[in-house]
């Protein structure tokens, strides 16, 4: 009996091993997706609308009234075009990038630190902007930028943009800080109460600071760093790490930390400032070194099942009214020049400096760092996002 069970046990184990290997092979073949390149062409004319369109976007970009009955710009689109909208929200650019790999989505709203990767992976297709009448109303300084076009080919249309500003506690800082040095070189004075954005892309903030203060490093674009420049930025951030109270990526966490006084200074978004409880002693400022920021792009999947509805959505969301509703709800500047007439708060566009080209010029928009230097240097290889991710983990320690 004993020998029999032992025998059976080993047979069962062998069976299990065979089955798991078979399963793994099956999984392996499905995930071994062919390496995509941006080969598909943009359409030259549109057909009839399909019945539905699936959209992947930041929270607050595609609101159909299910979160707040008063916030709804999707129903109007559905009535107008007959395209039923299925939407999914994501929390980080990296999550969006992974979700787009599933091929389930027709349209994605991508920030600059995802858009180029999506193009390179072949997940999104070029967009023929002639088929989008509302594209004409978009601010010129947002069109054909490095984060929404590749080699003169448009890969999407701008949605809205905003800046990563410096927020400070007005009780601690008198007068207001004018430079990012309060979170870098002088952060020691506020040890344990400094915050920073928890993402590899934050390295660009340090690079931008170095660009101003250490010109001999030769940084021309904070997203194009060679090995030496990245090392300098990492050193700066490692020094900052000593004084960081906590990093934030969840903006509600940042709001709370400023309200309780656990954080007194650090990078922030305008929408965080606007969401602070009444009476919180905190203000934002645009420091002299400039700021990083984001400019989001609506893109169409290369494998889109409903390309016509996708184009209809891109046109709709770029229309002044929908653009105003969506960007005002999220708290950023709209991309459409006429959108400011449709905001419920008349000061919306002033608060977010919409259309202020001078303000926009001070923003270094999030771009994915790649090996081929974004600043045009050809004599040196730049560090890519993977190197930034590794560096970021080392900085945090």
């Amino acid at each position, binding site marked *: 009996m004993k020998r029999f069970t032992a025998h059976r046990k080993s047979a069962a184990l062998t069976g*299990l091993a065979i*089955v*798991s290997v078979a*399963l*793994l092979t099956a*999984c*392996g073949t499905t*995930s*071994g*997706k062919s*390496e*995509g390149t941006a080969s598909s062409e943009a359409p030259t004319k549109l057909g009839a609308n399909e019945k539905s369109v699936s959209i992947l976007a930041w929270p607050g970009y595609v609101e159909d009234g299910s979160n707040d009955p008063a916030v709804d710009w999707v129903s109007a689109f559905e009535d107008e075009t007959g395209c039923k909208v299925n939407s999914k929200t994501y929390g*980080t650019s*990296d*999550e969006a*990038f*992974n979700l787009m*790999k599933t091929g389930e989505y027709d349209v994605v709203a991508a920030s600059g630190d995802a858009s180029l*990767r999506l193009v*390179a*992976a*072949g997940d999104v297709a070029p967009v023929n902007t002639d088929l989008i009448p509302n594209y004409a109303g978009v601010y010129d300084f947002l069109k054909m930028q490095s984060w929404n076009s590749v080699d003169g080919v448009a890969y999407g249309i701008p949605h809205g943009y905003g800046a990563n500003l410096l927020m400070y506690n007005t009780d601690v800082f008198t007068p207001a800080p004018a430079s990012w040095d309060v979170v870098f070189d002088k952060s020691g004075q506020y040890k*344990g109460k400094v915050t920073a954005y928890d*993402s*590899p892309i934050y390295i660009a903030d340090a690079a931008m600071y170095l660009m101003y203060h250490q010109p001999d490093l030769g940084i021309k674009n904070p997203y194009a760093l060679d090995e030496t420049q990245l090392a300098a930025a990492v050193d700066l951030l490692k020094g900052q*790490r000593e004084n*960081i*109270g*906590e*990093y934030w990526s969840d903006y509600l*966490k940042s709001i*709370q*930390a400023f309200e*309780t*006084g*656990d954080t007194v200074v650090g990078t922030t978004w305008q929408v965080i400032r606007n969401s602070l409880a009444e009476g919180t002693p905190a203000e934002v400022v645009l420091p002299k070194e400039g700021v990083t920021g984001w400019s989001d792009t609506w893109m169409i999947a290369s494998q889109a099942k409903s390309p016509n509805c996708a184009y209809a959505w891109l046109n709709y969301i770029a229309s002044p009214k929908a653009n105003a509703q969506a960007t005002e709800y999220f708290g950023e500047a709209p991309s459409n020049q006429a959108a400011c007439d449709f905001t419920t708060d008349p000061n919306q566009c002033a608060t977010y400096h919409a259309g202020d080209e001078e303000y926009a010029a001070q923003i270094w928009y999030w771009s994915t760092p*790649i*090996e081929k230097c974004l600043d045009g240097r050809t004599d040196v290889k730049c560090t*890519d*996002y*993977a190197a930034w*991710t*590794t560096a970021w*983990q*080392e900085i*945090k*320690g």
Partner: protein
Amino acid sequence: MTVDAPAQPELRAVVPPHRDTIARRGSVLLSKHPRLRLTLLLSAPLFWLGLVYIAALAALLITALWTVDTFTGTISQTWTLDNIITVLTGSLYQTVTVRTVGVAVLVTVIDIAVALPIAFYMAKVASPRWQRILVIAVLMPLWASYLVKAYAWRSVLSQDGIYEWLVAPFGGHTPGYGLPATIITLSYLWLPYVILPIYAGLERVPDSLLEASGDLGGKTGATLRLVVLPMIWPAIIAGSIFSFSLSLGDYITVNIVGGANQMLGNLVYTNVGAANNLPLAAAIALIPIVIIFGYLAVVRRTGALENL
């Protein structure tokens, strides 16, 4: 009986003959073949355990031997030990591993120290009524979401939180967000999982043994050390496995109250979520697995697992 007599033939007629249905044939088959019965009964749970659980784990380990194209994010299935080597030699992973194990050990020690007196009171001192009330009280925190509890500690330990308010008059200060806050919060979260096995272990210690020890002149300390402790040792080990392994894998609490610190779970999380580097994440995930296996092996040598 006589009254029922006329109904008798009808009753007989209602009893159905053995009709040859599929269900009947099936049950006959099953009753004749006990081996088949057992197979059908166990196949679903075994399928779950074998394929869904163990194969998923195996898939994770195999993923650690692959690499990822960092820009396009596609996994290339060439076998390489690079990820394992990176994880073993990288100073980042060593620092974080030491930090994580330190936190897990401290949490476990604190939890056992807190749980022992509570469990002893519950099992040996409290009246049956109070015993029930205390069990419910211990279980109560489990009804609330993990996240709610972690965020509650976030506000308790904040600069204008209740802790600061309590200790400020005595010159104390809140530890703020950081590793101490993480240890406090994790100790709180896993306490019920440590109390319950120790309580169950103490329940099994007969009162008569304590009395016998006292009658033979054993002092309280000696009784606890020589009679109670050896008997509940397996229960303490069981509790420690819970708190140690749960702390080892945690990344949410440290994210909420840990300030700028990261633990192994955070490294896994950022490599899956932010860096899209599943193979490296899988390699990092091997560290806690190896540590837990090591811990279980040590525990096994003490013989505690046999009495669980």
